[in-house]
Every structure is written in C-alpha cells, then in structure tokens.
C-alpha cells in the first residue's frame, strides 16, 4: 500500500514537472516579447526542476544523494530568479519601445494615478 502511494506520488510529481518543462519550452519559443519569454524560461529552473527532482527523491527515498538534490534545488532557486530578474531589468533599461510592446506598470506611475484619484 505504502509503495503504491509512494509510486503514485512520484509519478504525479514527475508528470507535473514534465508538463511544466514542456510549457516552458513552448513559451520560450512561441511568446512574442522578451519579458514573456523570460517568464516562461524561468519556469524550467524553478518549478520544473523542483517537481522532477522531488519525483526522483520520493521514488528513491531519503539518502545522501537526495540531500544533494535538495542542495541543487536551493542553489537553483537562489540563482535562477536572480538571473531572470537581471535580464528583465536589462530589457526594460534598453528597450525604448517597451510601452508599445506590452503594458508596463511603473511603480511611480501607479502611485501618481492613485494620488490623482
């Protein structure tokens, strides 16, 4: 019984991870604007990796290898969002036609609008 639960949990995690990776790939290649593409690409290193590695950890039990996998998850969760953030900030800095491409909510602008109300 426990084995069945464990297997189904790990299979669920792996399938969800596969779905996230697939949607990430599709989004990276099919989205029109770079910020949307960054958003899709950031899915790989956060949700996709976590779900896949969680599936593996559940399937194999808690060993030293799974501890290393948890460390990998921690490292990626630290590093990947920061790199996405940097790329996005660079894009916002150098793209002059950003407002034409998509709606950008500037914090200052939002505050001004609220004050205006």
């Amino acid at each position, binding site marked *: 019984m426990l084995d069945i639960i464990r297997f189904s949990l790990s299979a669920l995690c792996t399938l969800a991870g596969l779905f996230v990776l697939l949607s990430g790939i599709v989004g990276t290649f099919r989205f029109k604007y770079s910020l949307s593409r960054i958003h899709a690409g950031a899915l790989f290193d956060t949700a996709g990796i976590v779900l896949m590695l969680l599936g593996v950890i559940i399937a194999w039990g808690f060993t030293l290898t799974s501890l290393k996998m948890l460390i990998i998850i921690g*490292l990626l969760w*630290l*590093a990947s969002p*920061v790199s996405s*953030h*940097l790329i996005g*900030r*660079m894009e916002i*800095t*150098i793209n002059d036609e950003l407002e034409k491409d998509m709606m950008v909510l500037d914090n200052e602008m939002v505050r001004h609008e609220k004050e205006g109300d």
Partner: protein
Amino acid sequence: MARIRNDYENSWWPRLLRWLETGSSALDDRMEEEMEATHEGHLLPSPEEIAAQEAKREERIQRKLSDELALYTHAHQWSRTKGAKLADWAYRILAVVICLAIIFLLLQTASFLPSFGSPDNPAHNEVSRRYIEKGMEETGAVNIVAGMILDYRAFDTLGESNVLFVAACSVLILLRLSSDKKDLSSVHQLEMEADDRMYEPKNDIILQKVSTLLVPIILLYGVYGVMNGHISPGGGFSGGAVMGAGLILYLNAFGFKKAQRFFTFPVFQAVSACALTFYALSKAYSFFTGANHLPSFISPGTPGNLFSAGLIPYLNIAVGLVVCCTMYAFYTHFRKGDM
C-alpha cells in the same frame, strides 16, 4: 646589280640615324598624319547635326534603360514569385537529401564499429588495462582520471594549460585598452566603453544580497574540487572554472572597484606565470628522475589522503589557478578591455 633606291629617305640606315638623333618612332608619324587629316579634311559638324546626334543618343539610352528596367522587373518578379517557390522547393529537397545522406553515412560508419563493451575492442589494450590495474598503486591517486592526466600524461595537460594561457595572451593583445597611454584612439575607446556600460543595471540589491550568499559557497566549492581532484571527481580544470565563475559573479554584483582590491592585472600575470612555471619545473624534475631511474622525493603516499599522490594535488592547484585567472581575464577584457 644593286637595287635602285628611289626612296632613300625611308630606307633603314637613315631611319636608324633619325631614330638615334630624335628618338621618334613610326607610331608617332602615323598619329601625326591622322591628326592632320582630321584637321584638314572634316569641318566641325553643324548644330543641327549635333542636336540630331544627341537626340539619337538620348533615345538609345532611354531604350536601353527601359529594356534594362523590364529585364530587372521580370527577374525581380520571377525571383519573388516563381523563383522563390523554386528556391524553397530546392531548399527543402536539398535539406532532406543532405540529411538522409549524412544519416546514411553515419549509420554505415556505425555499423562498422566494434560492438559496445566487447573485450576484443581496440580500446581495451594493455594501456588502459595498466591504468586501471596499477594506476592507483603507481600514482597514488584514487581518481584514475586525475592519475592519467596529471601523471601518465602530464605533458599533455601542460600543453592544455599553455593553450589556455596563450589564448588569454591573445585576448589581452587584441582587447586590452592601455589606460596609461593617453593617445586619442584609446581615450575614444574608453569613452565608448563607458557609454556602453551606462545602461547596465548597477548596484542591483537583489543580485548583491544573493551573491553575498552564493559567492563564498561557489569559491569554496571550486577550491574543494581542485583540492580533491585526486580523490574524487573534479580536478584543476573544472574546479578552476567554478572559481572563475564565482569571481565573475562577484565582479558583476559589486563592480570593478571592489574586485580590483584583490584581483588586478599584475596579480593575474604573477599567478598565471608562477603556476605554469611551477607546473613545468616540477614535471620536468619528475620526468627527468623517472626516465633516468633516479631516486626522487616524490612518493605516491597513502591513496585517499588529501596530501598524497605525489605531485598531483599541487599540479591540480596550478592548473586550477591558471584556468580561474584565464576565465576572469577573458570576462573582464571582453567587457571592459581592462582589469
């Protein structure tokens, strides 16, 4: 009887004399005659004739131009419609044909390969057998790969480190901006660089907080990889690359001013040159004593200890330092042209 010369003036001897005196040639004479003929024979054409000729010329030019335009538009239209379709088809067919040909060739080659893992393969000769059987005993390295690349084939690895060093040198030659020599071009270049870096996000608080956490871990991991190269997977090249990546992350987060406190161009020069020289000298010593069957103070030690395996850990450190410095130098020179 001698021939009668009635044209003495144009016989060869007087012509030679004339040529010696004046240096004129027969060609000059003819040119003169033609020019005289035009001067005397033809009068200037009348304005009507000139106008008619001009009109004819104009008409001809117009005709040629329209012909050319028609040809061009035809070719253009053809290339836009029919030609584009043809090229598209040819591209598709060629792509498929070339892909199939390469697949066929590769499969054909693969079918001639010896079967995977069979003991009769040519790769399983006495060399690899000796590496596996006696590698640990002879070199003292638990990691057989480290024993191979830094002991049996250390000469090879010295060449690889030198390749990295030479690559770094050529990058320095090409990209280094001399800031002490204030000639015009380099000042201009420096200004361009400053312009280029104006847009770059600076003092990003998120990056700085994360890199205060990550940089020490990355550098420690690189040092671990280098120091344990003879015990576990890792070694100079991979550990050095990790250390270089950590340095680059630090540079990106905190800027050149803070990185220059510990890593400047003289440091790069000193570390690279010292590491390569140490590698070359120590390996020369070990090759010399080994080839001449002389006693040397290098001993394999107990396999598995941190300081064992003879020269391998020190050579790993040297290679790691060279790789780290080279990566950092590449990054800084491609980005700024200086360190």
